């Protein structure tokens, strides 16, 4: 901690006035900050603030348009990851950079040995290599199995492999890009323990995140980015989440969701013993639950534990192999997605760009996507543009979609505005059941706030809401009841007001209630 205020210390890394544009978009606009030896330096910013871009520049994946980089006080030029690695810079990417068909040890030594004409090019001594990898991992108490295939590992394990990969290359500066996005709360704590060991040994860590609590927990210093610019730098011990949130967003924000107590009515959705098989793999195994009107049931869980299949089955897009789905007593299995939609089930799909919208259709066309074939939008078999436009204009206003015109194609809009179109289209149906899958993924704080309010308003109107999210904070803030999925099963259930993160975290890791 004494190091932090000391201007005499030569920074491990200093970036000065880094600029980078993609076409007309300024992703980085004169970014400068310093990272000291032995500190965890956080980069905080909303999606699209430019955090990944500046780190890709430091790692040699992108070339900066302008600016300098200094390592231990010396100016350096980094033209490729190869050069970055040689300088002792390691990066764990947001999407892991591991080859699934290779073993852990193979992934770790990939690219570290000469390709030709050297004794060390021979990899016949597999056992020795694996021991070497293992000893490094053990030194930092990271549990990995060097001979396992990467494709068989959980995300948490893959992340450990990425860290060992960097350590094997002798990093002195380790960059972690949103490392906790895929972890359970317990795995996050384990990661923090590892990072503390690393900085104690003198490494510098750059920790990228948009989660304020994590920055408070692990950071020594934090640089805040907004729209490609540095808008502040703070010592973590001298700031708080409220201040950081306002710097990040650029205005006052409410960090907590305010909601009235729920007053649930009768059961709207009843799912019994639902099973799904995909190419012989059971993705859903005996799932049973119900959602009542006027309540939000949240499904938490690490990505890929059957949430996707559950949502698709409820919307009629995949066929379960066994079980029943009933909406107000009516059987939904075997009905087409359109029939289910008309019965009052609306669906905010996980990927708005692939499933929620037609990206090269206009705002207006997307608003009527599910009902353009009925009156008043069609007459005598012809579309009725006037009706469509006036309907779209009303929804645009009602749902605060920022677009110059309803004739603009939606690919020109920001993620937040795209999501408002999906949400508006679905909510305007006054659904009996609303399935919201990852409704705020990739959205900024403002849009997230808006979507949350809308979901709560639907609940208070009397809709049954099934919220599926891998963001535990979101599930805990919005839900009245929380279910946890693991490997296609519901492994835990709790009332939101009685929930605690540790318990849910254990369930997410598969520890049974």
């Amino acid at each position, binding site marked *: 901690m004494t190091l932090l205020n000391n201007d005499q210390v030569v920074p491990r890394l200093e970036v000065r006035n880094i600029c980078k544009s993609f076409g007309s978009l300024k992703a980085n606009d004169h970014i400068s900050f310093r990272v000291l030896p032995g500190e965890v330096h956080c980069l905080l910013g909303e999606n699209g603030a430019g955090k990944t871009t500046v780190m890709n520049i430091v790692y040699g994946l992108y070339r900066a348009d302008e600016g300098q980089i200094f390592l231990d006080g010396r100016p350096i030029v980094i033209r490729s990851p*190869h050069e970055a690695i040689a300088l002792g810079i390691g990066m764990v990417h947001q999407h892991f950079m591991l080859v699934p*068909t290779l073993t852990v040890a193979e992934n770790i030594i*990939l*690219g*570290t040995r000469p*390709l030709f004409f050297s004794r060390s*090019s021979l*990899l016949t001594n597999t056992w020795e290599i694996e021991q070497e990898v293992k000893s490094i991992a053990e030194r930092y108490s990271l549990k990995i199995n060097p001979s396992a295939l990467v494709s068989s590992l959980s995300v948490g394990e893959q992340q450990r492999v990425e860290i060992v*990969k960097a350590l094997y290359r002798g990093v002195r500066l380790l960059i972690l890009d949103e490392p906790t996005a895929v972890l359970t709360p317990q795995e996050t704590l384990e990661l923090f323990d590892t990072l503390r060991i690393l900085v104690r040994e003198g490494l510098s860590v750059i920790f990228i995140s948009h989660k304020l609590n994590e920055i408070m927990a692990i950071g020594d210093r934090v640089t805040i980015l907004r729209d490609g610019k540095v808008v502040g730098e703070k010592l973590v011990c001298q700031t708080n989440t409220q201040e950081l949130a306002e710097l990040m967003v650029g205005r006052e924000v409410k960090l907590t969701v305010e909601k009235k107590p729920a007053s649930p009515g009768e059961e709207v959705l009843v799912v019994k013993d639902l099973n799904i098989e995909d190419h012989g793999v059971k993705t859903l195994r005996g799932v049973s639950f119900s959602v009542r009107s006027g309540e939000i049931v949240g499904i938490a869980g690490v990505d890929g534990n059957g949430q996707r299949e559950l949502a698709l089955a409820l919307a009629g897009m995949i066929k379960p192999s066994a079980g029943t789905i009933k909406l107000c007593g009516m059987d939904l299995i075997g009905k087409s997605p359109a029939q289910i939609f008309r019965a009052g089930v609306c669906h905010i799909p996980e990927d708005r760009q692939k499933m929620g919208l037609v990206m090269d259709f206009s705002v207006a066309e997307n608003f009527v996507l599910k009902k353009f074939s009925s009156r008043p939008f069609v007459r005598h078999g012809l579309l009725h543009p006037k009706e469509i436009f006036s309907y779209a204009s009303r929804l645009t206003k009602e749902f605060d979609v920022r677009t110059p015109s309803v004739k603009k194609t939606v690919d020109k809009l920001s993620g937040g505005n795209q999501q408002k179109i999906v949400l508006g289209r679905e909510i305007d149906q006054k659904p009996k059941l609303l399935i919201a899958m990852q409704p705020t993924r990739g959205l900024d704080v403002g849009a997230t706030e808006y979507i949350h309010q809308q979901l709560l308003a639907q609940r208070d109107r009397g809709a049954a809401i099934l919220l599926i999210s891998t963001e535990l904070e979101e599930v805990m803030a919005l839900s009245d009841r929380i279910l946890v999925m693991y490997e296609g099963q519901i492994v835990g259930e709790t009332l939101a007001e009685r929930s605690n993160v540790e318990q849910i975290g254990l369930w997410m890791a598969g520890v049974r209630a």
Partner: protein
Amino acid sequence: MELVGSLLQAALRMATPLIYAAIGETYNERAGLLNLGIEGLMLIGALTAYTIAFFYQSILLGVLGAAVVAGLFGLLFAFATVTLKANQVIIGTALNLIGLGMTSYVHRMLFNTLAGSAGNVQVLPTLRVPVLKDIPIIGPALFEQNLLVYLALLLTPIAGFVLYKTSLGLALRAVGEHPKATATAGLSVTRLRYGAMVFAAMMAGIGGAYLPVAHANTFVENMVAGRGFIALAIVVFSRWNPVNVLWASLLFGFTFALQFRLQIVNLRVAYQFLQILPYVVTLLAMVVLRGQTAQPKALAVPYTEQV
């Protein structure tokens, strides 16, 4: 017994050009490049080898020349597909058309003939290993062959060793599967893919050269006759494993050899039916093996390094 022995011997001979081409293409596809133009490269190799052997009376020089010339075309393919990121299927198809058109044209120009053969070249001598060649059944196949057959037999285990037991092989396996991970590990995707493509083209060139110098002793237009496409099938059939290439090539070589024998025996079947045997086996193999998942993930997908 003797019949089986000589059939096996012929099978291995017919398999040899397939082994070269398929080993090269296995490396190429492991690196993420799909070369549908093997057929064209083999034709280029065949004409080059024949021409050099014809004018300089040196088979060895002919084979080397075939490797070099095909390698240059491989460099061109790599430039188009890796650097310019052109569609590999289209470039490969173009390579086949160029190979067929150009070899036919150059052959007629140089040798002043119309389509037919312009004369024979020396045969690659058969090297007999005394005593061992008299082992029943496998003796003639393994110990009474020419140099290129012996080298092909050595090539598969060596190619397997390099792919699975060296850092070069590790890099190749990685780059066809997940090029971005390979790049972030500090390797050059471009260099690896150029290298794999040039190697694959040289191997196809040698495979093609085999036909005039060790099989037909002359050049005829389109003499590769689909072997390039069979090599592509062999790569899939072997599940991208160079060691399996040997067995798969032997299977196809065997159908070629059998087809020749059956024509001689005079079954009362139109010889055209026998000639299609290897191609039918290829089709059957592809049908049986459909949906196999050993295929490199990034096969035929261009990779853009960021700027």
